[in-house]
């Protein structure tokens, strides 16, 4: 999969990804994704674009509204130097690809086109030609992701 990269810093919290006020019941107002640090993000990006971020992406609360808002806004994958564990799990559970790649922000700039191989974790920066080694998702949980998320995985395997 490939897309245009949008760069974010370190410690992007779930409060910053989607401020709590934009969730009522199960309704998630994804138009406000990243509002506190990058207002207008949802309008500005194209479907298939990717988020590239520094360490500890998705830290803070366990709100699943954060990865859901990112997914609904059209982002196809998140590559970060590291992820907060709950965000990482939630992303897998809803079928949003998450790849860990150390120093990724040193090799990718805003607007670069990147290509991700989900099986190997290798990320190719098509704009610069640089190849970056990332970590694919653990083998044991890849079946959840491949089914399209945990609910679909459950339905496929319940019998």
């Amino acid at each position, binding site marked *: 999969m490939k897309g245009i990269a949008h760069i974010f810093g370190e*410690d992007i*919290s779930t*409060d*910053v990804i989607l*401020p*709590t*006020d934009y*969730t*009522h*019941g*199960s*309704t998630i107002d994804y138009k406000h994704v990243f*509002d*506190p*640090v990058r207002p207008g993000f949802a309008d500005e990006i194209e479907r298939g674009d990717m988020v590239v971020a520094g*360490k*500890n992406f998705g*830290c*803070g*609360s*366990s*709100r*699943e509204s954060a*990865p859901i808002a990112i997914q609904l806004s059209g982002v196809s994958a998140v590559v970060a130097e*590291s992820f*907060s*564990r*709950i965000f990482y*799990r*939630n992303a897998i*559970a*809803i079928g949003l690809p998450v790849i860990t790649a150390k120093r990724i922000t040193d090799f990718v700039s805003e607007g670069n086109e990147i290509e991700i191989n989900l099986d190997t974790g290798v990320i190719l920066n098509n704009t610069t030609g640089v190849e970056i080694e990332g970590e694919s998702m*653990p083998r*044991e*949980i890849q079946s959840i992701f491949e089914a399209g*998320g*945990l*609910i679909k995985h*459950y*339905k496929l395997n319940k019998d």
Partner: protein
Amino acid sequence: MNGHTTAEKILANSADLEEVWPGDHIICKVDMAMAHDMGTPSIIEYFKEMGVENVWDTSKIVCVMDHIAPSHHVADADSKVSIRKFIQETGIQNFYDVGSGISHNILPEYGHVRPGELVVGTDSHTTSHGTFGAAGTGLGYTEMAYVLATGETWLRVPETIKFEFRGEFSKWVGAKDLILHIAGEYGTDFGQYKSIEYTGDPINSMELDDRFMFPNMSVELGAKFGFTPVDSKVTDYIDKRTDTPYKSRDADIDASYSEIYQMDVSSISPKISIPHKVDNVVDVEDVENIKLDQVFIGSCTNGKFQDLKIAAEILNGKQIAKGMRLIVTPASRAIYSRALKNGIIDVLTDSGAVVTNSTCGACVGRGMGIIGEGEVCLAAMNRNFRGRMGSYESEIYLSSVATAAASSITGMITDPRRKL
């Protein structure tokens, strides 16, 4: 070394395995599952989508209306209507409606947590239950729907970090200052995917209310679990609240740790975490002139009985600064009631504080103390991320209750040792 850490022992038991090692991916049986009002509406949708009729065990699920409580938007009131209906339909036995308090404080209070158990919840601070020797961790809504249906979840067995503390705290310095100090020293991701064990005399001599700080704020260090030791303080507390048998699974003496840190607490001074990250930690002296619009004392982290007692001790007979608000939110109705009987609530209200019902409220930016553009709040709570308490253009500083209470008298960040 062949021994195991607390996390390894609890997870091996929950996976029905002889032993497990860090890095293993295992399927675990959950002992208790908690869902709150912000997560449950989505959980209900996913649960129905799975095509499941019955929850796995009506006695092992706790549902708490704590985040937006009482509701102040129709949409939130409507979602609580659907939650109450779901509770009735499924027969979930443990339901705590608006006003009962914050889940992490309620679960132990009502006997839903025991040493050696695995507790999952739709809230990151579920790590708090490590105070009672239980492995507690946060999950999202899709995963909780799966747990409600099956009673199981997958976990990666974490490496364990150990802290060995020694020495005695100086007056008006304590658990919160120490955990902020750790965040400042090592960062908010050094515990990522790991379990943390906190040990030593300073922990052993603390009240459970203060020990709670370490497992609770372990998630602020990135951790999956946090534990303080199980001793007679813990078992006395638990045994009064549950008849269900349990087996404590404290770490073996020859357990293997990924890192061990030793720390003398006697040199720690009151700490402040400055906007907008928990690990931006400075000594209180460095920011003493910062003017405040609001002081908040509350949340699962700082709304406990000992917290309210310290606040009342400092505010007794004093008035909060003119032009400033002090919001105090007891973490549970039981804590509120105990503080009321001890005259603590009187002292706080006489000083000019607003004492709210028990809720996550201001800490999660959903009422009872939201702050506006340009405002500065000193908060005895757990996070200071941009926009967490309201406006993106507001600032949150974090501190202990002693620092927060002392600062509410002066209207600016104040060293509690200087004021008192």
